[in-house]
């Protein structure tokens, strides 16, 4: 399959997903409604940059969509459970935008590559939703003592530190 055929399909999927992510927090007008609409519109407009400029400024679309959701969520206009779908949608959008950016201008693409990518995208979405659900369920956990809280906090901090540690280890291995 030619990259020229695949590109509009991915771009179309990314636009549809971004529109859904931008429109969902706007549905219920009310407190800070104008701010949410402005952020949503800006997020959709900023999506043009990575679509037309090979993945550049993907961070802007992600930031604006995230900010819109934070505003909607903090003003209580979206249900807390929506974070599961939203998290999956955001990472799916990022994956689509980066896939579009990585596609060579002229290349023939094996069907296996497309199949694997779609599978990976689906797996990422499902994992993201599951993880967001786990994070959400974690809020309902009531800790019996401060020591348990300390242990859990230390584990979370260790998990966060694992990322830069892995990065350092990999760069040493490659050099």
């Amino acid at each position: 399959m030619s990259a020229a055929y695949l590109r509009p399909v991915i771009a179309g999927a990314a636009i549809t997903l971004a529109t859904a992510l931008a429109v969902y927090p706007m549905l219920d007008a009310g407190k800070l409604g104008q701010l949410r609409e402005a952020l949503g519109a800006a997020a959709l407009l900023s999506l043009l940059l990575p679509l037309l400029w090979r993945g550049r400024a993907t961070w802007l679309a992600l930031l604006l969509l995230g900010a819109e959701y934070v505003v909607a969520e903090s003003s209580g206009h979206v249900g807390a459970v929506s974070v599961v779908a939203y998290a999956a949608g955001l990472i799916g959008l990022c994956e689509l935008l980066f896939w579009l950016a990585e596609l060579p201008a002229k290349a023939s693409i094996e069907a296996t590559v497309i199949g694997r990518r779609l599978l990976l995208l689906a797996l990422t979405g499902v994992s993201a939703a599951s993880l967001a659900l786990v994070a959400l369920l974690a809020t309902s956990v009531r800790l019996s003592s401060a020591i348990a809280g300390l242990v859990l906090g230390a584990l979370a901090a260790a998990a966060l530190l694992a990322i830069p540690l892995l990065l350092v280890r990999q760069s040493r291995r490659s050099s």
Partner: protein
Amino acid sequence: MNRSPKLALYATFAAASFIAALALGRPELAGLGAPFALVLVLGLSLPPPRVEVHVQLSRERVLEGDQIEVELSLLSSETCEAHVALVLPSGIAPADEPASFLLGLTRDRPQAFKTKLACERWGAYRLGELVVRTSDRARLRLVDQHIAGTAALRVYPSRERLQTLVKPLETQPFAGNRISRAKAEGIEFADIRPYVRGDRVRRLNWRASSRGQTLYVNQQHPERNADVILFLDSFAEAQRENEGTLDLAVRAAATLAEHYLAVQDRVGVVGFGGIVRWLTPASGTLQSYRIAEALLETEVNFSYVWKRIDVLPARTLTPQALVIALSPLLDERGMYALVDLRRRGFDLAVVDVSPIAFAGSSEGGAPDPQALRLWRLWRETLHLRYQEIGVAVAEWTGGESLAKVVEEVGAFRRVAR
């Protein structure tokens, strides 16, 4: 190994969402960032793949315009997707699909992939130069491998079919297919002469002997071969895009060499330019291969050095050889060399590989019509000067058949004689 922009973005977003969750006291925000952190952790914990590539060509020797099949064998240390881009030299192009592929590779399983390339221009090439980009499963770290080309490909110039050839005025003492002007043993009748002692009886011309009351014998023209030197002026060339006068000259030389060798003539090649190359005249299949190889090395080498034909070894320009010069008549050194050859008594014919078709203005547009007219007039005058010293000159634009030009040269030589 390069880091993908995805790595920084995901790390930043995950960190920002965790900090926002802590600052605002809203764990839902941590839920937003958690998937990004998961991708980071999984992606970085898997090793990036190493890919080995082997390139094989279906043929190593082809003619201009032919297509070859290139087989890429890839072996990866991890299951990944690889972006393979073939780096093609000028003159070789992808036949029907782009020379860039996205392939899905499976861990430790060799995978072969075939693509076709079109050989658009003659030359000696080294193919198989590749850029392979792979990454980890999450595409966070990119590995670019530059693989140097090792497969040699020789593209020989295409040949035209000629009905006639420029006939050499003189022949050589070796047996061949040309009827010599000399009189000796042969098949073609030449003349009769009075019988002298030692003549064979079977050569007696009985009809003439009976009329003249004395014995006459037949004389024949012997069949001999000729020496043909293809003189390529490579001091300068006119070029536009991928085509130039040197390309045309080399194609013409290949065509002429093939046809002269087919009639058992001895053919030699002289590349007269910044670097002087020569191939002494010889005949046979081996010589045709030698000439094909020699022509592949022909190129324009810039030089200020004034060269005369004295630099050529004596054996290169054999006496009584027909010299066919293929020249764009752009450089004075080449033009004077041709005059010099004629003055030294060589039988010379010039095919003017016209640079006019490749003319353009300095800005890249169409040339000034007035300048073009003047240039044409100057070239016509040059042709006349060559003709005055007995050199047949015919202009070849490349758009027309070489046979027409050969016929034109032959016609001039018939009239001039």
